[in-house]
Structure formats: C-alpha cells, structure tokens
C-alpha cells in the first residue's frame, strides 16, 4: 500500500470529525450573544449534525427532536394556509427563548438550526447571526 493511500481520511472517519468541528465552529459564533445557552444543527428530520452548549443542562438530542417536530408541523400548516413553509419559529417562555431557523425547504440543503437563549437573551442579534451562518453551513454540508 502506498503512503498516500494510508493517509486517506475516509479510512479513519477523520473527515466526519473535521466536518463536525467545522459545523461546531459556525455555532460558536452564537456563543458571544447575551443570554446564549445552547445551539444545534440538524437535518430537517431532526438528526443532530453538530451541537454547541454554554449550558450542559439540555439534552440537545431530545430537545432538538421535540422542537424539530413542532417546526415541521408549522412548515406543513403554514404551507396549507398559503403562507409557504415557515423559515423561523420563536417560542418565548418565562425562563427562555427557543429559536428554530430553516435553511429553506427548496434550498440545496434543507437543514434546521436550533438555539436556546435565556429569557432576556438578545433575540434580534441571534436572528441576524442565524441568517449569517446559514450560507457557510450550507456550503459545508454540500
């Protein structure tokens, strides 16, 4: 076996680690936002691709799946009433804010971003950052 073959990352799944690391890097941009708690990138079916947390109290696999289901139902319903599939849902609670953002159902890669903030977290900045990181994440996943 030649040395170039031995160094191919697909034999060691290193490429997957690199991809997760790169995706996590995009999420780390959210880490500077006031009130930031946790975030995740998921396929539109709710499978986790990358996570980032400032607060380990959340089981992001479980939380992601649950809120992804809500988001997908909202996609279907908003389409049904002629408003097209939703791009974002913001859920406000007394203890925090959950933001789900969609890359677009017709985008080259349809994925979802989940972000959890404290109740007084900076929602406007979060929305802006989510919009900004969507394109580089899409490029990473393509």
């Amino acid at each position: 076996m030649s040395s170039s073959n031995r160094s191919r990352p697909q034999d060691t799944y290193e490429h997957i680690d690199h991809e997760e690391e790169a995706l996590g890097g995009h999420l780390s941009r959210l880490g500077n936002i006031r009130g930031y708690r946790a975030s995740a990138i998921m396929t539109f079916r709710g499978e986790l691709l990358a996570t980032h947390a400032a607060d380990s109290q959340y089981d992001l696999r479980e939380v992601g799946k649950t809120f992804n289901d809500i988001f997908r139902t909202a996609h279907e319903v908003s389409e049904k009433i002629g408003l097209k599939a939703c791009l974002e849902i913001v859920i406000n609670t007394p203890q925090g804010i959950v933001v789900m953002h969609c890359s677009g159902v017709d985008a080259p890669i349809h994925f979802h971003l989940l972000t959890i903030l404290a109740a007084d977290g900076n929602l406007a900045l979060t929305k802006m950052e989510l919009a900004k990181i969507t394109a580089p994440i899409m490029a990473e996943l393509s």
Partner: protein
Amino acid sequence: MALESYLERFKKINGYKASAIMNFTGEILAQDSNDPNIDLGLVGATFNDIFRTAHEASNKIGLEACREAAISTPKGIIIMRCSGVKAKVHYHTIAIFSADGNQALAKMEMEKMIPAVMDELA
C-alpha cells in the same frame, strides 16, 4: 365590551390580516379577518395544536410553558399568545400578518389586552 372589540386594535397595525381569541383548546371565542382566504376556524385550531405542543415541550426542558410563539414564513407571520397556563382564565390569541407586518406592535397589543380580555372571560 364584546370580545370582538379587542381585536379591533390589530386592524390599525401594518400588515394585519386576521386575528382570533380562542380558549386554550382552540375553540374560537371571537374572530376578525380582512383576508377571505384565511379560514380562522381551521387555522386557529391547527396553530393552537402547535402552540400546545410547544407549551409541553418548553415545560419538559425546564423553561416553563411558553407564553408566545411567532412563526415567520416568506408570505406572513403568525403570532400566538397565551394568557398564562396558571392565569385565572387560560386563553390564546392568534394574529396573522403579512411578512412585512409590524410584529413588534402586534406583540405589544397582545400583551396589553390580556387583563381586559381575562376580566371579560372570567
């Protein structure tokens, strides 16, 4: 004051399409619409289901039941507001706006009308 009169305040907000006050199970108590394509009975009940699922989900992760959900689409915004699961009357308000509608003002109006609507329903 009739419940419908509380929905009047939304009419002045930029991008307004329709609104309704529902009990927490999704039954319409009062409604208003200037868009004939929106069937508030169906839309209200469907989004109420989403909202109730969000109540449960946010409770489950320790954030307490949600008070508000805003769903943005390329063609519009749907805002759902809860009076509070432990309030003396637990009701939901839904308002639908065009995509460029003034959702900040809509949210403020929803917040302001809660005590009066609650008194009306008590």
